[in-house]
């Protein structure tokens, strides 16, 4: 080889090769360490102080030991098998985990703006800072959606960049606001504190962030900016719903009913939303596919076509999103079953929420089969992705609103 190798860029250095590999393993180690603390630590898992358990010396010890062990193993493994340094998993997942760390830092900064302890009351939670960040997130997401749509009509790279960056900002605002809310829940009373995944309002914010994040990951890798108009529009629709929830007083932090006081909830719920979010992105890809199909049928003279990914690419993107969502949703459903087995004495009770999760799972399972089998083409599958998401929305919202069952926490009271 000649010496024409360019100076490695910072991002290459950070996200490829040994640094990404080391960080990846350190993160995994830290997570396993924290899980170990929850399971085996002295005092083990306490519902009403888990956040501070993680942030305390004890958590730092467990997490830090895990991280160091992870690094050590990573070094050993990559010495024995150098290809590991280029492992795709590490490359793809590390940026997400970095982003999460950034969110934690942001949340710690926001916490400085919290009103004085004496000003905080359970009855009136409107002065808490997370509410303001969430408002900012709402505005940013809507702005981002508008920019993505504008980009369709005026494909200037400036507008495109603006759309992407605002979407990133929205994700970080939302994620850090949720973390801050976790902290805030302890401010009323240690006993009330719990992870911010316990009611519809909180999981909605989680959903926006995950949907946008999954989309951004795909955008980065496949340069499918035109799809953003559809995905971010879905997110914006959700944002309006969230604002409505807030306006009818559903945004208050409330103590957890006994059934929800379980560490399973902290894994089951976010995992579920990785599924929902990915299905939303698949729906966005499906919609983009149908629009492009329309444009092409109309003669293919529209200027928009130039920035749309090709039909084949959109088809693959929808598949890609489902391929992220399906295993996550499968795992989430299994975790839910494990939780049910521990809380209610049976892993499956044909409760409406469970049954609808099964329905969603079957529909996307059928989607994956239809894609492999002959005779199904892009357009039918695009419709399937859109319809599948409608069913998902029913599973997520409709069941809580219209059907009764054990998952009554999501109910609008």
């Amino acid at each position: 080889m000649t010496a024409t190798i360019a100076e490695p860029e910072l991002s290459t250095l950070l996200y490829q090769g040994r640094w990404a590999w080391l960080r990846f393993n350190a993160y995994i180690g830290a997570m396993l360490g924290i899980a170990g603390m929850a399971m085996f630590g002295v005092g083990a898992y306490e519902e009403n102080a888990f956040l501070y358990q993680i942030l305390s010396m004890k958590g730092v010890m467990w997490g830090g030991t895990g991280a160091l062990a992870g690094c050590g193993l990573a070094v050993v493994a990559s010495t024995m098998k150098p290809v590991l340094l280029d492992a795709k998993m590490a490359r793809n997942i590390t940026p997400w985990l970095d982003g999460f760390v950034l969110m934690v830092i942001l949340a710690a900064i926001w916490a400085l703006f919290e009103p004085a302890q004496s000003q905080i009351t359970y009855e009136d939670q409107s002065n808490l800072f997370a509410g303001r960040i969430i408002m900012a997130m709402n505005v940013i997401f809507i702005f981002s959606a508008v920019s993505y749509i504008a980009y369709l009509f005026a494909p200037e790279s400036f507008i495109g960049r603006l759309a992407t960056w605002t979407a990133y900002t929205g994700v970080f605002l939302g994620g850090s606001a949720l973390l801050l809310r976790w902290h805030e829940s302890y401010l009323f009373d240690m006993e009330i504190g719990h992870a911010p995944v316990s009611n519809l309002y909180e999981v909605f914010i989680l959903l926006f962030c995950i949907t946008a994040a999954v989309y951004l990951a795909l955008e980065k890798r496949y340069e499918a900016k035109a799809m953003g108009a559809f995905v971010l529009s879905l997110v914006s629709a959700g944002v309006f719903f969230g604002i409505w929830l807030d306006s009818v007083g559903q945004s208050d932090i409330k103590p957890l009913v006994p059934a929800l006081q379980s560490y399973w909830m902290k894994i089951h719920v976010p995992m579920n939303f990785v599924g929902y979010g990915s299905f939303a992105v698949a729906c966005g890809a499906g919609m983009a596919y149908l629009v492009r199909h329309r444009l092409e049928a109309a003669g293919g003279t529209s200027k928009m076509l130039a920035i749309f990914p090709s039909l084949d690419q959109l088809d693959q993107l929808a598949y890609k999103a489902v391929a992220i969502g399906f295993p996550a949703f499968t795992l989430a459903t299994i975790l839910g079953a494990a939780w049910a087995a521990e809380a209610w004495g049976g892993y499956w009770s044909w409760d409406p929420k469970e049954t609808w999760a099964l329905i969603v799972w079957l529909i996307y399972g059928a989607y994956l089969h239809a894609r492999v089998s002959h005779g199904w083409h892009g357009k039918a599958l695009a419709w399937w992705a859109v319809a599948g998401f409608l069913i998902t929305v029913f599973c997520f919202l409709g069941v809580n609103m219209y059907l009764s069952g054990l998952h009554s926490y999501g109910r609008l009271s």
Partner: protein
Amino acid sequence: MPRMQTFPDLLKSLWQRIGSMSLAIILLVVLAIASVIGTVLLQNQNQADYLQQFGPLWYWVFRSLGLFDMYQTWWFMSILGFLMVSLTSCLWRNVPKMLKDMRTRKAAVAEKSLKHFKYLHDWQMQDVDADQLQQSFRQRLQGWEFRQVEQDGVQYLRADKGRWNKWGYILVHSAILVVLVGGWIGSEYGFRGNMAVPEGSSEHEISFLQGTETGHLSMPFEVRCNSFSIDFFPTGAPKEFLSNLTIIDHGKEVLTSDIIVNEPLYYKGVRIYQSSFGDGGSDITFKMFHMDGSETITTAKTKVYQSWKDEKTGLSIKVTDFKPYNVENMANPGEVIDFQDLGPAVVYELRGPDLKPVKIKAFMNPFIDPKGKNQGSFMMVSLTGDKADYKPVSLGLDLTNPVEWKLFHAFMRQLAIVDKASKDANLTAFKTAMKEVFGAGKRPERMQDVAMRTLQAVNMLSALPWPMLPMLGDFEQHYYTGLQLAMDPGMNVVWFGSAMLVIGLCIMLYMPHRKLWLIIHPESKGLHITLAGMTNRNHLIFDQVFNDMFTQLDQDFRQNT
């Protein structure tokens, strides 16, 4: 003319049809649609409610189809069974083929099939060394597995990545079978039922719903509830339900432990869960306010779920429930919800000769409104016995204060004597009554309120038809703890299948099988080199990978010349 199929042929083609992908799609969708029914139609409710809701005809139709207990019906089970047969068939047909493919990995590719490759690039080169080309190919593909053959003078070098991908398929599809088998084992050899154990007593039988009937099953041990308690959040919402249980096996106490929701107890393969609670026969002391003007207050002791009867008047009280906390929304319709605890209350049915039976929820404490004003004792009365028909009845007097009861009677007596025609008859009567009860010149605190209450009581109390007014005087609470007991020998099978499913999915979706060939064809002038690729999934990425590969190899090859 097509040949008539023999029976074995027919079976064979049917077997293949059953394992086909289109049938899989249909089965999954049919299962999804069937599952919807049971979520729209509430399952396992009271049959009478169904009859009322749907009318006789539809009730009969739905009932014949088993829609009220849908997930256990023969037809739903048949769909699941059919899914298992279909999965077995497709595994049966595909697995041997896949295992063989994964093992052999033929390196040579026929010229003909090469044309069908989606990924294909060519070079025409002179003065290069085939070995060196292969060397750079191998170097570029770190972590791939290689196979090399020479056939008819052509050199084939095949590289594979993720060649175990088909294990994903095998794992996922057998996982579904494993999960279904686990579920079947659970339903066949497991049980799940409820048990209510009052504090201080023990119980060894569970009851469960079997279609529309209740079944019973005896456990191989007894469960004693030593105590039950509820812990509250500062906001008043319940935080924790805790039972202290002792397991008694053959008369011996073997284990004592606390259980809370989400933290069950495990004994002899049976899991014991905290699932509900209720009144376990609390001791109730009624204060009986005699309404015959005699000013008498007597007490009556009884328990929840028991009855008490007054011999003289024939009045009977059947206590049905007791609750120490009664959090109710006190806001008027349209206002912001405002939950308040109204304190202990007892629920009873009141009967007597010539009386309409009523259901009453009597509160122990008077109602103090948000402004701190005492509004007197009150109860909820339902004429039909239905919960929805409860109407609040404000009694006027604060019956926890014996002085008010006395004052009320004094007032009634004075009312009877004063000159009704005079303008302030009420006032005169009240003043005299006050003097009688408190002595001259003395007056109770909040005199205004007491006066208002007494006036109100005149109308209210005299309108009540009962000879006595039973109010909650005192109580000693005993809970029962509602336990759920379950044994499921198939559960671990299900978890095993679930793990297979998730691992299999990850292999199937994230570790695509990619194949690359470097085919070197010696020709009269130099070498004809072909790079061919194939993947079973994720073409977007492979597109990029393949083109990058081509560019890199191109560079390498040119440097070698």
